[in-house]
């Protein structure tokens, strides 16, 4: 596959989330809690639109601050959907609504990373029969840059920029820190992860949505008590 030089600093939150969600060795998605990636991507899209000054949030709602497109089809479609809604809806409602198309979103973001040369594609056979496509990193530079940036921030007391605070919240709520960090390291860094995540309201909404979902799934599994 032809690749073009990528620019790590220009990756969106959703692109960075997918990059970290892919196993370096296999090029397949790591195991995450149900719907974690879909909700994480929904949160990444809303978060990106807040960074671009198109959306704003408070403790309860998402609201549009500008309808001017940002020249990004994924973001502009979401912005148009939110702008078309006659009334302001709770942040958690938008997260669930956008996450309903989470698998399509995941595939679109993944293909963007392929087009940018950050990921390659490989056809493999599963059990010698089923064809499957994997997305190994082409160089791994971008993923290493993202991880290095996050680990540096977690291990010092710097004030984060909003992009990194949002990303840390995404990694927390999707359970990716369980994969990225050893258990002792995760325990040591948990207060800092929580501190940085909570700086951004959308992270708290995502965390609440994930918690509610896990309770609902557990109730459905266990049955009525």
């Amino acid at each position, binding site marked *: 596959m032809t690749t073009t030089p990528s620019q790590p600093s220009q990756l969106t939150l959703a692109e960075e989330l997918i990059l970290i969600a892919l196993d370096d060795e296999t090029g397949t998605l790591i195991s995450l809690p149900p719907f974690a990636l879909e909700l994480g991507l929904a949160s990444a899209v809303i978060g990106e639109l*807040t960074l671009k*000054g198109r*959306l*704003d*949030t*408070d*403790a309860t709602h998402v*609201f549009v*601050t*500008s309808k001017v497109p940002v020249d990004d089809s994924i973001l502009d479609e979401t912005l148009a959907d939110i702008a078309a809604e006659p009334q302001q809806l709770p942040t958690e409602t938008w997260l669930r609504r956008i996450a309903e198309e989470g698998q399509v979103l995941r595939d679109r973001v993944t293909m963007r990373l392929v087009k940018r040369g950050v990921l390659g594609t490989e056809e493999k056979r599963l059990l010698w029969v089923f064809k499957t496509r994997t997305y190994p990193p082409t160089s791994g530079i971008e993923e290493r840059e993202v991880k290095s940036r996050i680990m540096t921030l977690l291990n010092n007391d*710097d*004030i*984060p*920029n*909003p992009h990194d*605070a949002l990303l840390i919240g995404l990694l927390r709520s999707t359970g990716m820190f369980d994969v990225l960090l050893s258990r002792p390291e995760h325990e040591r860094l948990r207060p800092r992860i*929580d*501190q940085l995540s*909570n*700086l*951004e*309201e*959308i992270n*708290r909404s995502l965390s609440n949505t994930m918690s509610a979902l896990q309770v609902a799934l557990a109730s459905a599994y266990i049955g009525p008590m």
Partner: protein
Amino acid sequence: MSATYSPAGRLDGSNAAAAESELLGLLSEQGAAVTVDLSKLDYVSSAGLRVFLSAAKAAKAKGGKLTLLSPKPAVMEVLQISGFDRILDIQS
């Protein structure tokens, strides 16, 4: 140099960029001490909170100091929920 910045009413996506620009201007000098008087601020959104974070980051980089002063209860609650009270200097 010390200066006071006094936002009033709402600090949200509609005026956050202007507020950030003004605050960063006040903090541009090395070692500047800026007080943000919040006594007339009624509401702060996520975009407004980012203004404080950006200003605190700039102050730290320049060896300056940023103090948030006299937030109303509703604004203080937002600052506490988001953990800003553990990162920023907030005085009642």
